[in-house]
């Protein structure tokens, strides 16, 4: 903030309170970085690790962002380069007719009311520069043709709004031209990275992932300890000692999860759920201390970074000599695995078309990527009655399901998680149709925005989801929100706490493990969280 006294309002100015916001054109409204609404910038050490440009200490609230001297030229060249390289980007810059179909579909716009969060306007932040730099009409007519100069204020605006988009792609479901605003955000972020303007919540995981294989920088021995710790907890609960196969050469299946599953509650219960399921099946699988992260924050950084961080998955599958890959409950990881992995780091012709060793089902949908989603795998087991289940153990839960953006919209995984939940829970209620499946509302904290300094913005973005959760809470008494995404499991906790207090968040395989009747298990009195099972409350009290 400026200390200049000439900026201090006079008493009579303070007396005038105008409740209506000023009517200015969007180009004339500069960004105001208020605490709670932006993410901290990437630390220099993380950019250095990744050989990324312009590492420095700075803050978005600084007047001078310490951009490189020739920053304009860098952005212009970077823009041109991407227009040439990606035809979709060129198309998205030219084709929008501003019909407004996307305008009111963004959770950030709905929750915040900020017009620049309308996807059409967010894209216009870039299109206006595109017109000025690359179109004749824009060069000649300027503002009249919707064009504007590239200034440092524009860069600040990009930083603010491209890190206020979770790349959830709800808006693109409604676009008659199929413009993918998430891709525009991705391009915007790539250009910002050329100037060294990224956020730390994305770049620290990327830097960690690059060196240790996972977002948190957990090294192999730490990873081993963590899984063994879970195995001990499982033994306390069930009386069964389970194996933790690590880096096992010749296993049938390589299992990859987001690190959120083995790091933070409530994801850890989901992780224990996978372990119990695989033990019960006697599956010949392995974890990897190298491919110890399915998540890929490269997706929130640049195309090159996605490829760099994803390369370990196929490399590890090859080294261990597995037949195919199974993936855990994660959101953005599946956009990478499903849409990019094959063309970026494939073809994985050394792997086989995934076939369930238990049911013999061939997963034709994963013929090319060779990677199957855990709920596809588990729902197939259930369809063939391969599991003994006691859904009554989940009778204290009244469940609804939040479709995570990427599995729902980027890979069409809609029915499998629901099938699994219905098999393990007796009380399941859907949220309203326009808030689930392809139209699902984002948690508000994806794409690197799930940090605590950005909490206010997250709660704005999470309101449409929270509103729908509150609706089923009031109508059916819902007390558990299930999801298949590690980011969701972290970010929906505050969303529920604020908008629908009393609703807790769970992974699907946590509920599977609670209902799973294992061979030789002792009588269970609690669920994975150590809370008494329905009907066992008194046993616990004794």
């Amino acid at each position, binding site marked *: 903030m400026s200390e200049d006294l000439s900026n201090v309002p006079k008493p009579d100015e303070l007396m005038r309170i105008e409740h209506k916001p000023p009517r200015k054109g969007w180009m004339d409204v500069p960004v105001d970085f*208020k605490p709670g609404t932006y993410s901290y910038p990437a630390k220099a050490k993380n950019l250095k690790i990744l050989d990324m440009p312009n590492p420095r200490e700075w803050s978005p609230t600084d007047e001078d962002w310490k951009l490189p001297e020739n920053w304009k030229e860098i952005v212009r060249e970077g823009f041109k380069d991407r227009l040439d390289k990606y035809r979709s980007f060129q198309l998205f810059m030219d084709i929008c007719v501003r019909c407004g179909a996307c305008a009111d579909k963004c959770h950030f716009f709905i*929750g915040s*009311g900020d017009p620049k969060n309308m996807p059409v306007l967010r894209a216009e932040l870039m299109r206006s520069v595109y017109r000025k730099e690359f179109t004749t009409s824009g060069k000649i007519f300027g503002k009249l043709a919707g064009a504007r100069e590239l200034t440092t204020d524009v860069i600040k605006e990009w930083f603010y709004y491209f890190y206020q988009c979770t790349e959830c792609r709800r808006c693109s479901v409604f676009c008659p031209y199929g413009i993918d605003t998430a891709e525009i955000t991705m391009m915007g972020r790539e250009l910002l990275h050329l100037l060294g303007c990224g956020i730390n919540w994305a770049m620290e995981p990327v830097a960690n992932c690059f060196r240790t294989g996972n977002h948190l920088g957990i090294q192999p021995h730490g990873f081993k300890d963590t899984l063994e710790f879970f195995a001990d907890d499982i033994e306390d609960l069930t009386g069964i000692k389970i194996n933790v196969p690590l880096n096992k050469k010749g296993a049938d299946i390589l299992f990859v999860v987001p690190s959120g599953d083995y790091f933070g509650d409530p994801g850890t219960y989901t992780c224990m759920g996978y372990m119990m399921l695989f033990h019960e099946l006697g599956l010949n699988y392995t974890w990897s201390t190298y491919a110890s992260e399915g998540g890929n924050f490269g997706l929130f950084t640049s195309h090159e970074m996605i490829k760099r961080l994803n390369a370990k998955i196929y490399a590890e599958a090859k080294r261990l000599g597995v037949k195919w890959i199974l993936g855990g409950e994660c959101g953005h990881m599946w956009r990478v695995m499903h849409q990019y992995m094959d063309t970026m780091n494939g073809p994985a012709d050394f792997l086989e078309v995934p076939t369930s060793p238990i049911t013999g089902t061939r997963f034709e949908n994963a013929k090319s990527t060779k990677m199957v989603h855990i709920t596809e795998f588990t729902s197939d087991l259930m369809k063939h009655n391969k599991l003994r289940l006691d859904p009554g153990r989940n009778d204290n839960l009244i469940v609804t399901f939040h479709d995570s953006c990427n599995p729902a919209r980027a890979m069409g995984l809609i029915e499998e998680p629901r099938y699994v939940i219905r098999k393990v829970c007796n009380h399941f209620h859907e949220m309203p149709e326009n808030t689930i499946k392809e139209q699902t509302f984002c948690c508000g904290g994806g794409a690197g925005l799930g940090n605590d300094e950005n909490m206010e913005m997250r709660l704005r973005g999470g309101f449409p989801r929270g509103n729908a959760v509150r609706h089923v809470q009031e109508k059916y008494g819902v007390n558990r929100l299930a999801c298949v995404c590690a980011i969701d499991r972290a970010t929906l906790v505050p969303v529920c706490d604020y908008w629908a207090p009393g609703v807790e968040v769970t992974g699907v395989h946590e509920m599977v493990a609670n209902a799973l009747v294992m061979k030789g298990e002792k009588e269970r009195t609690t669920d994975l969280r150590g809370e008494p099972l329905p009907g066992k409350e008194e046993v616990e009290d004794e």
Partner: protein
Amino acid sequence: MILETYPPDTSRFLKQEKNQFANPVGNTISLEIEDIYEELLHGRDSEKLSHFLDRIIKIRAIQDFSPAQAVVFVFHLKNAVREELGGKIRNDQLFEELLEFERRIDKLALFAFDTYVKCREKVYEIRVAEVKNRVFSLLKRADLIGEISEQEPDIREKNIDSVT
């Protein structure tokens, strides 16, 4: 009036879209303000009022408003009544009733202030809880919890030894 505290493009959307899930902000505001008005007219209990108020303020407490802007809509009710019923109040000499009604609005404004602060406290609480949760996991992972108190005396003794 409340919806006009948002930018023009936004207030148009907030007014037009009637689906409560597609437009939770606009719908919550119009629904709850009606209830608040009803309660005020009948001078009913404060508990219900604060419940309705909570729904609106919860939203405005995390939006891009200053504290005053977030709760100012309560005072808009005074303007609305004066504008709509000004003539009738003058003709029928209803000033006492008006004063009584405005007294209730003032009381409501105090509720609004309480509610606003409660919401902001909740945001900070949530933020702290998230950070704490993360730090706790890290400490647990690093085996730092529980060991510190046992080791401390040893370290001190050693230090004393080295000094003496």
